[in-house]
C-alpha cells in the first residue's frame, strides 16, 4: 500500500484520464476528484447523476431495476409483474438476498419471477389484454397475495400501453391494490430515477389507503424505511430499536408487507436507512402527515451510538435512557469484537465502489476496526450524497462517481489497497489481480452487517477475506526461489 499525497492523487487522475479521447476526458474529469474536507459543496469538485458516456463500461442499472429490484421487489406479500419481455426480470428476482419470513409461493413471493413474457404480437397489438388476463391468472394461482404491482419494462412505454386503466379495473374487481409503475428502463440516467418513480407509486397507490382508520398507537411508534433486509440487516437493526423502548410498526421494503406500508403514516418518526432510494416518500409523509424523518447509520459501534442518541432525541427521557442502556449493554460485546479483530486489520486500506448509501455509511465501521477508506464512489448518487461523503472521507482520498471499469482497475493498481469492496461485476477482476475483495452489495452471501450483531459478522468477514492464506499462495512453486523449491522437495 502506498499513501498518496494530494498532488500524487491528482496526477493519478490525470494519468488515468489520458487514454480517453478529448471529449470523453473532459466529461469524465468532472466525475473524479480528490477529497478536500474543507469543501462544503460537493458540486465544486464532483459532478454526479449525469448520463454515462457511451463506450465506457458503467456499472449502473436502469429505472426498472431501481423500482422492481430495489424498492418494490422485497415487498413480500405482493406479486410484482415484470411487465414486458422476459429478459429484464431475470436479474431482479430476489438476487439481492432480501430475507423474509413466509412460505414462498403461498403467502410470500419475493423469490419468484412473474413476467408477462411479451412476444412480437404483444408489441404489435398491445399487451393490455394480456396483462388483464395475467392478473386473473395470478389471482387464481396465488389467492393469498395482498396486491399486485405492474413494473413496466422499456417496451411498455414505447408502445403506449395503458397499464393504469388495466390496473384500476383489476383493482376494483379483485378488491386489492394493483399498482401500475411507470419505471421503464429508459427513464433517467440510472436506477436512481426508478427509486423515485417507485416512491411516487407508493405515495399514490398505497400510503393513504388506511387514512382515517382506527389504529392503536403508542407515543413510541417508529418505522424502518429503506432497509432492504439484505442478509437480515433490518432484523439486526430492529431488535435493539425495540430494546430501547421503541415500537417498530412498519419495516419496508425488506421483509415488508402491504399492511405495514399502509400503516406507516401512523408513525411518530420515520427512520430512514437508504436516503437515496426512499427520501422521496419520507418527504411526502413529512409534509402530508407531519411525520419527521431522519437518516441513521447502523454500521459499526461508533455510528450506531451516534444514531441511537439522535433517534432518542426525538422522544422523552424513557427512550433516552433506553438508548443509553442499549449502548452500555452492547459495549462489552463490541469491545471484544474490536479487541479480537483490530490487531489483525489495523492500518489496512480499503477502496469502495457501491450504490445507495454504503460508500459513506460503512466508513465508520472500517474505522472502528482501525482500517482506512482511501477511495470511495457511488454508482448513482446525487450531489447531496457527495456533500455528506466529503466529511466522512480523509483528505486527499479519491472520489469517483459512476466510475468506469477501466478507471477503477487503474486506480486500484496504483493505490494498491489491501481490500476492495464493490459489486459482483468487479469481484472476479480484482480477485484475479490478487487483491482481497468483498462484495458489498449483498455482503458476499453473508450478513447481516447492520447493528451490533452485524458488526461482529462484518469484522469476521473482513478478517477472513484479508487474512486468508490464499493471498500468499499466488506465486506457483516453480516461480519461487531455489530455497522455496528445496522446501517443496523436503516436504515431498
Amino acid at each position: 500500500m502506498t499513501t498518496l499525497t494530494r498532488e500524487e492523487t491528482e496526477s493519478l487522475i490525470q494519468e488515468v484520464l489520458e487514454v480517453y479521447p478529448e471529449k470523453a476526458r473532459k466529461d469524465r474529469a468532472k466525475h473524479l476528484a480528490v477529497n478536500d474536507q474543507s469543501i462544503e459543496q460537493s458540486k465544486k469538485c464532483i459532478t454526479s447523476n449525469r448520463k454515462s458516456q457511451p463506450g465506457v463500461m458503467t456499472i449502473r442499472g436502469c429505472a426498472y431495476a431501481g423500482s422492481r429490484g430495489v424498492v418494490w421487489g422485497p415487498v413480500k406479500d405482493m406479486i410484482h409483474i415484470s411487465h414486458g419481455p422476459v429478459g429484464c426480470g431475470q436479474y431482479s428476482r430476489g438476487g439481492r438476498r432480501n430475507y423474509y419470513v413466509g412460505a414462498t409461493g403461498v403467502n410470500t413471493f419475493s423469490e419468484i419471477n412473474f413476467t408477462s413474457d411479451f412476444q412480437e404480437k404483444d408489441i404489435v397489438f398491445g399487451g393490455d389484454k394480456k396483462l388483464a388476463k395475467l392478473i386473473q391468472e395470478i389471482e387464481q394461482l396465488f389467492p393469498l397475495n395482498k396486491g399486485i404491482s405492474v413494473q413496466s419494462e422499456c417496451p411498455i412505454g414505447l408502445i403506449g400501453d395503458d397499464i393504469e386503466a388495466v390496473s384500476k379495473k383489476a383493482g376494483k374487481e379483485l378488491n386489492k391494490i394493483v399498482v401500475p409503475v411507470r419505471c421503464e428502463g429508459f427513464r433517467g440516467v440510472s436506477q436512481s430515477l426508478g427509486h423515485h418513480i417507485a416512491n411516487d407509486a407508493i405515495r399514490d397507490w398505497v400510503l393513504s389507503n388506511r387514512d382515517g382508520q382506527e389504529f392503536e398507537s403508542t407515543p413510541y411508534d417508529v418505522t424502518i424505511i429503506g432497509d432492504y433486509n439484505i442478509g437480515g440487516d433490518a432484523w439486526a437493526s430492529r431488535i435493539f430499536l425495540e430494546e430501547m423502548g421503541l415500537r417498530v410498526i412498519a419495516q419496508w421494503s425488506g421483509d415488508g408487507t402491504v399492511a405495514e406500508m399502509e400503516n406507516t403514516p401512523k408513525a411518530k418518526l420515520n427512520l430512514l436507512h437508504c436516503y437515496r432510494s426512499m427520501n422521496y416518500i419520507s418527504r411526502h409523509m413529512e409534509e402530508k402527515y407531519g411525520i419527521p424523518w431522519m437518516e441513521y447509520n447502523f454500521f459499526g459501534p461508533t455510528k450506531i451510538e451516534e444514531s441511537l442518541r439522535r433517534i432518542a432525541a426525538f422522544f422523552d427521557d424513557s427512550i433516552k435512557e433506553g438508548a443509553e442502556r442499549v449502548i452500555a449493554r452492547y459495549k462489552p460485546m463490541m469491545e471484544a469484537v474490536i479487541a479480537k479483530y483490530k490487531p489483525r486489520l489495523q492500518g489496512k486500506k480499503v477502496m469502495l465502489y457501491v450504490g445507495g448509501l454504503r460508500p459513506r455509511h460503512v466508513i465508520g465501521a472500517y474505522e472502528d476496526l482501525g482500517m482506512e477508506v482511501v477511495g470511495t464512489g457511488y454508482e448513482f448518487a446525487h450531489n447531496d450524497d457527495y456533500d455528506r461523503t466529503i466529511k466522512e472521507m480523509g483528505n486527499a482520498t479519491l472520489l469517483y462517481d459512476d466510475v468506469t471499469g477501466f478507471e477503477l482497475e487503474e486506480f486500484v493498481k496504483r493505490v494498491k489497497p489491501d481490500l476492495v469492496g464493490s459489486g459482483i461485476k468487479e469481484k472476479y477482476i480484482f480477485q484475479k489481480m490478487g487483491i482481497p475483495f468483498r462484495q458489498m452489495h449483498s455482503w458476499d452471501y453473508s450478513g447481516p452487517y447492520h447493528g451490533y450483531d452485524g458488526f461482529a459478522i462484518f469484522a469476521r468477514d473482513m478478517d477472513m477475506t484479508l487474512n486468508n492464506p490464499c493471498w500468499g499462495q499466488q506465486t506457483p512453486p516453480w516461480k519461487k526461489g531455489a530455497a522455496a523449491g528445496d522446501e517443496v522437495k523436503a516436504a515431498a
Partner: protein
Amino acid sequence: MANIMIRKTAEGGLSFYLPKRDLEDGIVSIEFDQADKWGGELRLANGGTYYVDPLDAPPKLPISLRAKRVDAPE
C-alpha cells in the same frame, strides 16, 4: 414554473428540493421572512435563484410550492 418543496433542516436552516430534477440544496437567503410576508426570491447554495410568490404568513414547513427559476448555475 416547477413544483418545489421547502423544509427545515436538522440544523435549523431551510432546504430546497426540486423533485423533477431531484435537486436538493440549502437555501442561503430568502427575500421575505417576516410575520406578514414570506417568500420571494430564494438563493440556493449552488448559486441558483428561484422565485416563489410571497405568502401572507410564514407557512408550516415542509411545504410544496410553485416556483419560477430566475437563474440557475447550469
